[in-house]
C-alpha cells in the first residue's frame, strides 16, 4: 500500500517534471530565435539601411530603402483590396445570411483558406495575372496578399459583428432606420474596435509573408515607383540575401529580419492592447 502510494507520487513528479521541462524547452527555443534576430540584426541597422539602395553584389554598404518602400506599398494596396472585401463578406455572414447554407459554405471555405499554403496562392496569381499581363509586378504581389487577407478578415469581421447585441439593432430599426443604415451607422460602430484589431493582425501577418511574393512581385535592386514593375520587398530580399554568398548580404538579411519581426510583434502587441481596452 505504502509502496503503491510512493510509486504514484514518483510517477506524478516525473510526469510534471517532464512537462515543465518540455515547456522550458519550447520556450527557450522560441526566445533563442528572438535573441539571435536582435543581436545579429542590430549591427546592420543604421541610417543608410533606411535611406540607400542596395550596393552592387559583392561590395559593402548601401541599404534596403527600396525594399522597405516595396513592402509598405504592396501591404497598403493589399489592405485596400482585402479589408473592404473581407468586412463586407463578414457583414453578409453576420447580418444577412447568419444561418443560410451559403453562409455555412463561406465559413467552411474561409477557414480552410486561412490555413491554405500561401505558396499556392503565389502560383495561382502567377497564372492569373503575371503571365497574361507579361511580367512580375507590385500589383500581382498585392493581389496575392489580398487573397491571403480576405478569409482572415471575413471571419474576424463576422465574429466581431456578432458580438454587437441584437437589442442595439432592434432599437435602431424601431426608430425607422433602414437595415443598411443600421448596419453601417450602428453595428459597425459597435464593432469598430474588434474589427480594427482583426485588420491590424491580418496586415501584420501578410507583411511578413514571403512565399506568395516570390512569383508575383519578385525582386528589384533599384527604386521602382511603377506598380506594374517587379518590386523588392523586405521578405523576398531576406530570402535572396540569406541564400547568397556574401557576408554583407547576410548581415543585411539579419537587419531586414529584425525590422520585419519588430514591426509584426509591435503591431500584435498594439492590437492586444486595443482589445484589452474593450474588455476593461
Amino acid at each position: 500500500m505504502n509502496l503503491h502510494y510512493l510509486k504514484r507520487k514518483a510517477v506524478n513528479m516525473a510526469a510534471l517534471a517532464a512537462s515543465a521541462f518540455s515547456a522550458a524547452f519550447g520556450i527557450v527555443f522560441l526566445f533563442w530565435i528572438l535573441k539571435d534576430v536582435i543581436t545579429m540584426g542590430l549591427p546592420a541597422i543604421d541610417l543608410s539601411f533606411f535611406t540607400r539602395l542596395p550596393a552592387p553584389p559583392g561590395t559593402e554598404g548601401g541599404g534596403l530603402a527600396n525594399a522597405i518602400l516595396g513592402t509598405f506599398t504592396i501591404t497598403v494596396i493589399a489592405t485596400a483590396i482585402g479589408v473592404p472585401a473581407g468586412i463586407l463578406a463578414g457583414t453578409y455572414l453576420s447580418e444577412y445570411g447568419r444561418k443560410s447554407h451559403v453562409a455555412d459554405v463561406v465559413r467552411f471555405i474561409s477557414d480552410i483558406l486561412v490555413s491554405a499554403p500561401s505558396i499556392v496562392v503565389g502560383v495561382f496569381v502567377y497564372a492569373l495575372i503575371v503571365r497574361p499581363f507579361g511580367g512580375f509586378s507590385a500589383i500581382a504581389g498585392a493581389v496575392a496578399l489580398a487573397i491571403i487577407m480576405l478569409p482572415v478578415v471575413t471571419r474576424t469581421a463576422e465574429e466581431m459583428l456578432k458580438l454587437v447585441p441584437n437589442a442595439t439593432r432592434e432599437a435602431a430599426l424601431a426608430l425607422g432606420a433602414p437595415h443598411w443604415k443600421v448596419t453601417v451607422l450602428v453595428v459597425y460602430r459597435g464593432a469598430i474596435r474588434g474589427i480594427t484589431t482583426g485588420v491590424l493582425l491580418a496586415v501584420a501577418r501578410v507583411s511578413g509573408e514571403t512565399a506568395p511574393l516570390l512569383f508575383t512581385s519578385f525582386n528589384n535592386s533599384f527604386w521602382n515607383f511603377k506598380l506594374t514593375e517587379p518590386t523588392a520587398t523586405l521578405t523576398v530580399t531576406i530570402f535572396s540575401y540569406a541564400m547568397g554568398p556574401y557576408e554583407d548580404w547576410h548581415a543585411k538579411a539579419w537587419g531586414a529580419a529584425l525590422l520585419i519581426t519588430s514591426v509584426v510583434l509591435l503591431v500584435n502587441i498594439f492590437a492586444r492592447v486595443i482589445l484589452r481596452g474593450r474588455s476593461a
Partner: protein
Amino acid sequence: MGIYDRHKADKAGDALFKGISYFFALSVILLMALIFIVLLKESWLSLKTFGFGFFVSSDWDPVSGSFGALPAIWGTVVSSLIAIVIALPISLGIAIFLTEMAPKPLKGPIGTAIELLASIPSIIYGMWGLFVFAPLLSDYVEPFLVDYLGFIPLFRGAPMGIGMLPAGFILAIMIIPFISSVARDIFQMVPAMIKESGYGVGATKWEVISRVVIPYTKSGIIGAVILGLGRALGETMAVTFVIGNSHEISLALLDPATSISATLANEFTEAVEEIYLSSLVELGLILFVITFVVLALAKLLIKKTALEGGRR
C-alpha cells in the same frame, strides 16, 4: 422628399447593400473554385503527359523534361510528420504547464509570449535554422546521432545540419506556439468540477491530467494536431532554407531532401519550358488538395467536438 419616396430610397439602399455584401461573401467561394480551376488548367499539360506516373516517379530532370512528384510528396509528408512527432509532446507540455502548473502571475505573460511567437514570420525561422541551428547540428548533434544511433537506418546520412530531420525540427518549433495555444484553450474548457472530482478521490495531479483532462479533450487535441499538420504541410520558407533541395528519396533523415513547397520556391522562376512549369503547377495542385483534405478533416473534427461538448 415625401415619405413614400424616402421609403423607396431606403428599400433600394437595403437591396444594394445586401447585394454587395452577398457578392463579397460569394467571392470567397468563387476564389476557392478559381484557384482549383486555374491550377488544374495550368497543370493540364503535365497531367496529360505523365498521367498517374507523376505520383510514383522519382525522376526530376529539367533537361530531358521528365518529372515525377514522389520525392517532393515524400519530403512534404515526412518532414511534417517529424514536426508533429516533436511538436505534439512539447506543445502538450506547454499547455499543461500553463493551465495546471504555472503560478498565476506567470500564466498571462508566458501565454502571451507564446502567442506572439506564433506571429513571427516563417522566413525568420528558416533563416535562423540555416545560420544558427544547422551549424550547431552538424558540429555537435548529428555526428553523435550517426555514431550512436547509426545502426538505425533513419539516423544515417551526411551530418551537414541540412536535410529532412533539421527541416522537421524547424517546422516543429514553428508549429509549437500554434498547437500549444489551441491546446491551452481546450484544456481551459474542462469544467473545474470534473477535475476537482478527480482530486477528491485522491488522484495526483498527473493522474487528473492523464485520466481526466486529456481524455475529456481528446478530439479537440486531435483537431489541433491536424490543424498544425495542415500548417506544416504547406509551410514554405521555414523548410526551404534547411531541407537541402535534393530530389533523391532517402530513408536516412540526415540526408538532404525536398518538399513540394521548397521545390516551388526554388525552381518556379527558373522554369522556362512549358512542361517544367506545368509540372511545378501540378505539384502546387497536389499540395493544395492534400492541405484541403487535411484542414477539412480538422475542421469537421473540431466542430464535432464542440457539438459533443455542448451536449455533455
